[in-house]
C-alpha cells in the first residue's frame, strides 16, 4: 500500500475533440475561464491571441488547431490551462485552450503503460504513456515537447507525419478526423 502512495502522481485530464488527454500537474499553474482574447494579427493560426492574466500578458494557444483538429466555437466548458514550460532554456508561461477539463486523477506509476512504439496511430515521441481508466483511454502528453514546437503538430501518425506542416498553415483536418473515427 505504502509503495503505491509513493509511486503515484496527480494528472489533470482534459478533453479535446473526442480524446481524453492527461498531463502531470506539476507544470500546470491554474485553470481559468476564457476571457476576452486579443488576437495578434499575422500570427500563426494556432496562436489564438493574448489575454490579461492579472496584469500579465499571456499568450493563448488553440490546442485543437495546434493538434490539427478541426476548430470549433468556444463553449461554456472551454477552459484555458495555464502552463509553465521551458523553451530554449527560457521559462515561459502560456495558456492552452482545451474543450473541457475532466478531473485530477491519482495515477499509479504501474498503471501507466509505455506508449506503443508503433501501430497505435499516435506519435509516440509526444506521449509519455497511456492509462486505461474505466472505459477511457487517457493519453499522457509531454507538454513541454508539445508546446515548445513552433509548428502545428499532428498527434496521429500518418504516412507523412514526422513533423507537421509549416507554421501558419492549417492542416486539412478531415484526414485526422477519419483516423480518429476509425480508432474509436
Amino acid at each position: 500500500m505504502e509503495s503505491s502512495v509513493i509511486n503515484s502522481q496527480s494528472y489533470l485530464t482534459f478533453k479535446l475533440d473526442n480524446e481524453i488527454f492527461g498531463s502531470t500537474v506539476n507544470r500546470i499553474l491554474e485553470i481559468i475561464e476564457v476571457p476576452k482574447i486579443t488576437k495578434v494579427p499575422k500570427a500563426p493560426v494556432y496562436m489564438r491571441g493574448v489575454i490579461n492574466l492579472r496584469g500579465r500578458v499571456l499568450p493563448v494557444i488553440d490546442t485543437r488547431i495546434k493538434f490539427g483538429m478541426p476548430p470549433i466555437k468556444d463553449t461554456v466548458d472551454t477552459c484555458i490551462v495555464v502552463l509553465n514550460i521551458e523553451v530554449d532554456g527560457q521559462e515561459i508561461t502560456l495558456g492552452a485552450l482545451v474543450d473541457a477539463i475532466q478531473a485530477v486523477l491519482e495515477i499509479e506509476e504501474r498503471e501507466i503503460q509505455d506508449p506503443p512504439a508503433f501501430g497505435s496511430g499516435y506519435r509516440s515521441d509526444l506521449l509519455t504513456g497511456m492509462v486505461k481508466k474505466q472505459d477511457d483511454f487517457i493519453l499522457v502528453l509531454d507538454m513541454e515537447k508539445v508546446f515548445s514546437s513552433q509548428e502545428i503538430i499532428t498527434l496521429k501518425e500518418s504516412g507523412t507525419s514526422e513533423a507537421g506542416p509549416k507554421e501558419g498553415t492549417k492542416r486539412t483536418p478531415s484526414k485526422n478526423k477519419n483516423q480518429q473515427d476509425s480508432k474509436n
Partner: protein
Amino acid sequence: MDSLQHIFIQEATELLSELEEALLAFENNLEDRDSMERIFRAMHTLKGASSMFGFTDVNDFTHELESIYDALREGTLKATPGILELTLEAVDHLGEFIKNPSHEDESIKKRQKTLLEKIKAYNTGLTPTAPTSIKETGNPSLATFYISFTPGKDILKNGSNPLYLLEDLLELGKGCVLPAFPHLPGFDTLDPTTCYTSFEVLLETEHSEADIEDVFLFVADGSGIKIERFVKPVTLTEALRQKFLDTLPSERPLGLEKVKGLMEVEELPEEGQAVVAKNSTKKNILPENKASLNSIRVSSEKLDALMNQISELVTTQARLSMLVNGLEVAELGAITESMSKITRKLRDNAFSICLIPIDTLVVRFQRLVRDLSKELGKNIELITEGTDTELDKSVIEKLSDPLLHLMRNCIDHGIESPAERSRSGKSEKGTIRLEAYNSGTNVIITLSDDGAGIDPGKIRARAIERNIIPADAELSEQETYQLLFEAGFSTAETVSDISGRGVGMDVVKRGLEDLHGGIVIQSEPGKGTKFTIRLPLTLSIIDGLLVEIGENTYVIPLHRVEKCYEIPATLLTSIHQQIVLDGTRMPVFHLGEALQCENTASTLNQVIKLEYEGKEVGVSVDAIIGEHQVVLKPLGHMYKEQEEFSGATILGDGTVALVFDIDRLLKKLISESVKNVNYGKLSYQ
C-alpha cells in the same frame, strides 16, 4: 564565494571607471593635486578590496601602481605622460583581469608580467634619485598622524560611542589622546545626552591614512574629522607624550599649529609647508564621504521588481477608476481620485529612480577619443554638453555600443588628419560634440564632428555598386544617408582596424531600433557630419494614442505621432497609396488591410501622420479613441515573429491592447509595398 566574487567584480569595475575618469582629468593637468589624490584613493580602495576578496594578483599589481602615485603625491616623482600612459594601460589590464579571474588566458598573464616590470622600473628608479621615498614606496613604515575628531552633538543619541572609536584608533599604533571641551555649558544647562567633548589624537602607526579613515567610516554626518600626516615621522617618546598631556585642558584643542610647535624640536621647518599643502587636498575627503553615505546601492533586479509592481498598480488603478466612474458614489470617487494621484506620484518617483544621467557613458567616450586619436595621429577634442540629461538605465546600457561605434566613425572617417585640416583652412584640432537634451517624452542626443562630412554622391555610387539600390532610384538626401545603415555598406576606401568593416552602422541602427529610437544624419561635405539620435525616455511606461482597427484596440506611441487627419473612407482603396494632406503628398498605409483585420464599415477614416527616418508617412485607422498612459509588457517568446508589435498593454477594462513598434511596422509595410511596385517610385517620392 561566487557571490562575494561578484560583489568584488562589481565594485572593482566601478572603481576602475572612477580611476579612468580621474586619470583623464589628470592628463589635462599633470600638476593637479586633486585628481592625483583621486587616483591614489581609487587605487587604494581597489587594493584593499582585492586583498579582502582574495584577489592577491590584483592586490600586488595595484600595490605597485599605488606606490608610483604615492611618490607623485609626495612629490618625490614627477608626473610624466609616460606614467599616465602606463597607468591607463594598467587600468585596462586590470579591467580584463577582473572579468576573467580564472586567469586561463595566457596573453593576460603575459601582459600582467610585462606591465608589472614596467611599473616596478618606475618604482625602483625612484630609490636612487629620491632616497626619502623608500618608505613611501615600500610598505608604509611608521608615520605620525595628527587626528582631530569633533563628534557631532547628537553622536551619543545615534548610538555611537566616540570612546570606542578612539580605542580602535589606538589599536592601529602608539599614540595619545587629548580630550577638549571648549563648548562645555554651565551645569544647569548641561544636557547629559549631548556630546561636548572633542578629541585630538597623536598617532604613530604603520597603517596608512585610509586605515585611519576607515575607523571613522560609520561616523554620521555632523562630526568633524581631520587627519594630517606629518611628512617626517615623529617618534612619540614618553617625554613628548608627557609634554602633550601636560597641556592645560583650557588650552585645548591645541590645533595643528600648536601641536607642531610642541614637536618643533623634532620637525624640520620646511616640511611644514608640505603639511599645509596636503591639508588643502585632504579637506575633500570629508564632504565626499558624506555624499556617499547619502546614497545606497540597490541591485537592478530589485529596481526592476519595483517597476513591475508599480506598473501593475497603475493598471489596477486605471481599472478601479473606471469602475468607480460608473458607480457614482461620491465618497468612493474622492478616495479613488486621491489614490490615483498617489499612484501617479509613486510612479513618477519610481521612474526617476531608474533614470541615470548620460554622464556615466562619457568617460568611456573620452577614453576612446583620446586613445584612437593618438593611434591615428589626429588631434581631437571631445566636447560634451547636457550630459546630465537622464535616461532609463536599461536604455543607457544598450546605448553605449551604438554611440561608441558612431564616435569611432567620427574619429576614423570624420575628422581629417591635422595636415589635411590645415590645408583646407580648418584648425588642426578637430572637435567632436556630444549633446543631449530632452524634447517632450524623447531624449535627443546629437553627435557632430567638424570633419570631412559625407558625400551623398559617394554613398549613392557605392549603394548602386553593391546592389543595395537600383541605378535609377530617386532618393532624397536623407534617404541617401539612411543607406549608410544598410547591412554590408561601407564607404571607407581602405578598411581600417577601427571602423569600416561594413558591419557596424547597420548594427547601430538595429541597436537603436531595439530601444525604439531612431537616427537621422545631416552632413555637409567639408564641414562635418551630425548624427541625431532620438530615444524614448523610458521603455516601460509610455504615452500612447489609443486607436481602433477592426474589432481591436491598438496603441501607437504618442511620441511618434505628428498629426491626425480625418478623411472619407472612400479615399482609401488599397493597402498603400499616395494621399495629399496639408498640401503634401505622403504615402498612407491602410492598417486594417495590412493587418488583415475585419473591416468596420465606417464612412470616415483617421490618418495618423508619423515620422519615419526623416520622412512623413501616414497610417490609417478606423477610429481614434484618445490618449492613454501605457505600461508596456512584452508579448513574449511565442510572438517573437510579430515584430510589428513592441509589446502589449492592459487597458482600464482589463483587455489587452497591442502596442505598435512604429519603425518595424513601417519598415515591413514599405518593404512589402516595394515588393509589389518598383522601388524608388512608390515608397520614395
